[in-house]
């Protein structure tokens, strides 16, 4: 079973050289820490920055330079700044190769719910609806089950949707799964020490698994 950093580490292996990537808040943010050496990646922050760098050194914070999570950050050589309309313009026109974000639920046809729980204070969708509706390649980083022990991989989402038929891949503490074009979760890799049966029990949506699902390698 993976911890959050393990999930981030596994997702980092999906990033290819030359990718422009948008990382959501939470586990996706951690992915930046595990991008392999020699892989050139540019991180987009949808508030208007390409080429997001690490946090500033203490005392060097700049109130004018933040990421979409409102954290102080830095630029890198080759960074560019632009307004919000252009930022979502490049998202809609699919110039961003990969979007990684968290989710409350994913359905077996690739629907995602991650912004609203009825009865709870709703903070808003931010840029998530734009990202999931436009990205050509979306990976969800999340826990396989919620705090109540219920599967978050469902036949259909029960929560209000963020986007429909858009998620291609899910990485959880238990497994890597693809969403099949015809519907259903295809088990690609198991987390170290986790059995197919265990994953099957934690997955309410339709799960397809070969007899011999490899254990993931994180190195």
């Amino acid at each position, binding site marked *: 079973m993976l911890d959050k950093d393990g999930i981030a580490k596994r997702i980092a292996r999906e990033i290819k050289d030359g990718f422009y990537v948008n990382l959501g808040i939470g586990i996706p943010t951690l992915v930046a820490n595990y991008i392999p050496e020699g892989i050139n990646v540019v991180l987009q*922050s*949808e*508030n*208007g*920055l390409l080429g997001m760098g*690490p*946090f*500033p*050194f*203490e*005392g*060097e*914070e*700049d*109130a*004018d*330079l*933040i*990421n*979409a*999570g*409102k*954290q*102080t*950050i830095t*630029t890198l050589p080759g960074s560019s*700044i*632009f*307004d*919000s*309309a252009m*930022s*979502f*313009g490049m*998202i*809609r026109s699919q110039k961003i190769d990969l979007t990684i974000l968290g989710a409350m639920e994913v359905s077996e046809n690739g*629907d995602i719910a991650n912004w609203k729980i009825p009865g709870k*204070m*709703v*903070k*808003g*969708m*931010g*840029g*998530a*609806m*734009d990202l999931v*509706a*436009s990205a050509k390649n979306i990976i969800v980083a999340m826990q396989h089950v919620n705090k109540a022990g219920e599967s978050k991989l469902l036949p259909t989402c029960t929560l*209000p*949707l*963020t*986007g*429909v*038929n858009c998620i291609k891949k899910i990485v959880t503490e238990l497994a890597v799964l693809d969403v099949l074009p015809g519907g259903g979760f295809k088990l690609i890799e198991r987390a170290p020490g986790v059995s197919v049966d265990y994953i099957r029990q934690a997955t309410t949506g339709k799960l397809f698994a070969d007899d011999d699902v490899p254990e993931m390698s994180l190195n």
Partner: protein
Amino acid sequence: MINKVVSGADEAISDIENGNTLMLGGFGLCGIPENCITALVKKGVKDLTCISNNAGVDDFGIGLMLQKRQVKKMISSYVGENAEFERQLLSGELEVELIPQGTLATRCMAAGYGMPAIFTPAGVGTEVAEGKEVRNFNGKDYLMEYAFDADFAIVKAWKGDTAGNLIFRSTSRNFNPVMAMAGKITIAEVEELVEAGQLDPDHIHTPGVFVHRIFQGANYEKRIEQRTVRTKN
């Protein structure tokens, strides 16, 4: 060149009236028009509809206007860093329309570019699509979203000149340029106001034609919402 300079925030916002719709630039607390917000609180104008990506925090930004119950409706993509906001929302005092961030930006841009509506895939198949026209282009569904219609746009820039030209600094640019284009009246506060001719025409982000009033603001706090740092080895 046409001179757009006014004396300060009080004069700039003097004709904003109860019930007006305002666009307010900024992302979180980054790039918000601090001086104009202070002046709006002082003026006490009420029943405002505010189009702004966020709603500030309890004691800063639009949060200050919420404290004074000046806002009737927020149109935002992400809110709730703000206890007073939550209280007013749950009590029904405050109306909130949540829309996707890219839709928010593009509806501003549409107004500035004279396009009555735009198409975006954001929100297709979700509750955001309710009551909206869905249209298929090349096999993909899009929502038709209308240009915003705001009485005033209030933006914050880094530098500006007397002709109203604006230059933004780093990610405090965010929504400011698209809102600056979109207001019937656009008010710009800047950290440094210079004479026309002092800014390189190639570096200007917002041409002065979009800006009706400009002034040099004072006492910028530029508060940081999430101070994240690393330590030197």
